[in-house]
């Protein structure tokens, strides 16, 4: 058991919490929160793997995690706008009630 194992288990825990939140949350806002949990786990595992393997370039892992953060920011922005549209259109943002595409 090396330190890499512990870090990977921590990020796996984040992924599990995120998926469980995706299932149990009713509204799109709660799902957005769960997605952010999962993305955090992804970034953590990338950095842990790059930092722990001696042959890998540690700076590259940090850059990859930075890209994950940028994608998360873009995704949160877009989802905020989508939530506004859904709220205006349907009056609520529960996943169950949004069943028409047009």
């Amino acid at each position, binding site marked *: 058991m090396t*330190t890499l194992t512990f870090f990977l288990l921590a990020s796996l825990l984040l992924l599990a919490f995120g998926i469980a939140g995706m299932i*149990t949350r009713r509204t799109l*806002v709660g799902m957005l929160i769960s997605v952010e949990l999962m993305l955090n786990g992804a970034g953590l595992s990338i950095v842990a793997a790059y930092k722990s393997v001696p042959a890998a370039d540690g700076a590259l892992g940090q850059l990859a995690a930075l890209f994950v*953060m940028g994608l998360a920011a873009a*995704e949160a922005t877009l989802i*905020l*706008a989508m939530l506004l*549209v859904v709220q205006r259109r349907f009056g609520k943002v529960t996943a169950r009630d949004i069943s028409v595409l047009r």
Partner: protein
Amino acid sequence: MQQDVTQGATTVLEYLAKPLKALQEWLSPVLPGDEWAAYLAFALYVLIIIGGALGAVLSRNLIRAMLGLVMTFLGVAGMYLLLASPFLAFMQLLIYVGAVCVLIFFAVMLTRNTDGGEESRLPSLGQLFYGALAFLAPLAVAGPFIVMHAGRQALETPKTESTASLGAGLLGSYVLPFELISIILLVAMAGAVYLAFRGYAPKRGGEKT
């Protein structure tokens, strides 16, 4: 100025030396070796992450769920510090706690999903069952895999890369992904503004969107 700071740090360390020594002796049966402080910090960050994630997933109030998410972000920032990436920990605070959380706060407020909203009821029994299943499935699939493939010998301590080398990578070998992520951010922002203001545009005979 530099002298003062160094002197202050030394004084603080001297002041803390005795309790730290006692803590190390108390922990020595469990955490041998020189890295006891790192293991202690890791355990603390894991506790913070688990507590925050529990709040984010289970809280019936979305604002409280967001606060749990902030807690998780802070724990992950601590993990980045342990992995010798202080710049990344700083970016985690700046981007996630600073920007993403404000966006989620806006999302909660603009959809009026605070206390007494749609999330305030407990999920149904079936939903809870599938939630528990979804929590256990990745642990059961990937957990044994990670533990079985754990390395035998200890890895070397990660080294801190300078922020300058990160910047050199962003503008050198990896300039294409850097530009791509800029374009993605720009397109996402433009799309968000378009989506948000579309319904409010003055009608000119066309159908209302």
